[in-house]
């Protein structure tokens, strides 16, 4: 990945970030910039370095090299000052187990001048999160919705969500994403999230990045990503004029090719309509068709086992 200088306007950015644990390199010179108003989804398999990246972004961890930038300033240095402008939903619920929802809200109200206690209480009522039950006794779904309510409590400019729907049931997941949609509609908040729930973020993410073994192997707009990753199916026919097989996919940068009984199925990373039209008209290429891939399929193709 070449070093890119993030535009000054990026609320959240990372420059040449390297994190080591002893001899293990968790992140190797990662750079990225989240444009204002974007919903930026960082994907990666377990152990790819997502958690280290989030900890650096939140100023909780000092990187070996490079820096994470919150609103243009080093996250490690401005953490406390930046917090009121930043809403966070951590991977592991981190509130003290004995504190009730109401107590948590008034605790944050003292820290953040812009705290909107009414909006927080309103959300919790809507999600049926009991106000007087200790945090430790809430269900997983209730904890998730409480965390989101608190994260939105200061009307933040940016949200960092670390696998926020992990362990939530489908109903709670849906409620979570609907609430996030409402926040985006009302305030256009910039969102950075890590997730394994690819279907859940597919309609919402504007940008997708994939971490693999501590490096960013992909970072682009979701629309462009979906246009270039497609599946192509066709059959090869032996003809007198055609003597060469196996090169017909060259223009598309196939990432995976399977030869099946009825023909060939290829996942390609560089699809375009014109090239496909001439491919489909190639002598001996029969019944060529192409179809879109889900974000999950793209993720598997990029981050999956083979190198």
């Amino acid at each position: 990945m070449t070093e890119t200088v993030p535009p000054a306007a990026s609320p959240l950015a990372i420059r040449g970030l390297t994190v080591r644990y002893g001899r293990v390199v968790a992140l190797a010179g990662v750079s990225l910039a989240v444009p204002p108003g974007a919903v930026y989804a960082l994907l990666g398999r377990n152990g790819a370095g997502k958690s280290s990246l989030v900890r650096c972004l939140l100023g909780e961890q000092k990187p070996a090299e490079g820096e994470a930038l919150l609103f243009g300033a080093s996250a490690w240095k401005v953490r406390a000052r930046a917090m009121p402008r930043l809403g966070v939903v951590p991977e592991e619920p981190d509130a003290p187990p004995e504190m009730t929802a109401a107590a948590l809200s008034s605790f944050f109200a003292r820290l953040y001048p812009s705290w909107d206690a009414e909006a927080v209480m309103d959300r919790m009522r809507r999600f049926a999160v009991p106000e007087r039950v200790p945090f430790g006794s809430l269900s997983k779904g209730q904890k998730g919705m409480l965390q989101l309510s608190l994260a939105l409590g200061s009307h933040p400019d940016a949200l960092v969500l670390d696998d926020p729907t992990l362990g939530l049931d489908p109903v709670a997941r849906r409620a979570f994403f609907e609430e996030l949609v409402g926040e985006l509609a009302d305030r256009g908040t910039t969102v950075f999230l890590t997730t394994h729930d690819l279907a859940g973020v597919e309609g919402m993410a504007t940008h997708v990045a994939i971490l693999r073994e501590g490096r960013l192997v992909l970072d682009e707009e979701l629309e462009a990503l979906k246009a270039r990753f497609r599946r192509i199916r066709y059959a090869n026919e032996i003809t007198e004029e055609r003597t060469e097989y196996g090169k017909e996919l060259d223009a598309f940068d196939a990432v995976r090719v399977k030869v099946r009984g009825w023909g060939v199925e290829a996942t390609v990373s560089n699809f375009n309509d014109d090239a496909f039209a001439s491919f489909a008209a190639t002598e001996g290429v029969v019944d060529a068709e192409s179809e879109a891939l889900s974000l999950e399929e793209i993720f598997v193709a990029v981050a999956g086992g083979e190198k």
Partner: protein
Amino acid sequence: MQRALRVDPRDATPIWRQIEEGIRRLVASGALAPGSGVPSVRELAADLRVNPATVAKAYQRLSEAGVLAVRRGEGTFVAANPPALSRGERSRELADGAVRYASLAVTLGAGRENALDEVRAAFRRLAPTRKGDEP
């Protein structure tokens, strides 16, 4: 409207375009009458679980095309005189649908006459026969 409007996030067609075309179709077919209200950006985004900016982009394009009209403070409505589908668009949609139906018929092993009879029957169920509907 939400039930008749579907988006498939897995489709490579950008979601804003799916929404734009879906609403155009609903308006052109009369399912959304001129002057009737459409959901707010926020409602539709929550319902389809897509980014509100995506819905806003579709609504903006539809407003510019004169299909939707925004009344400040009141909401978004279907325009009083929305433009009809162009002849080219209509025949393309018809041709696409016909190819899909014809391949289904072939897959099922149905004969051509059998398949055409089903189309005629479907027209009869949809609306009372008018002159011109019969081939």
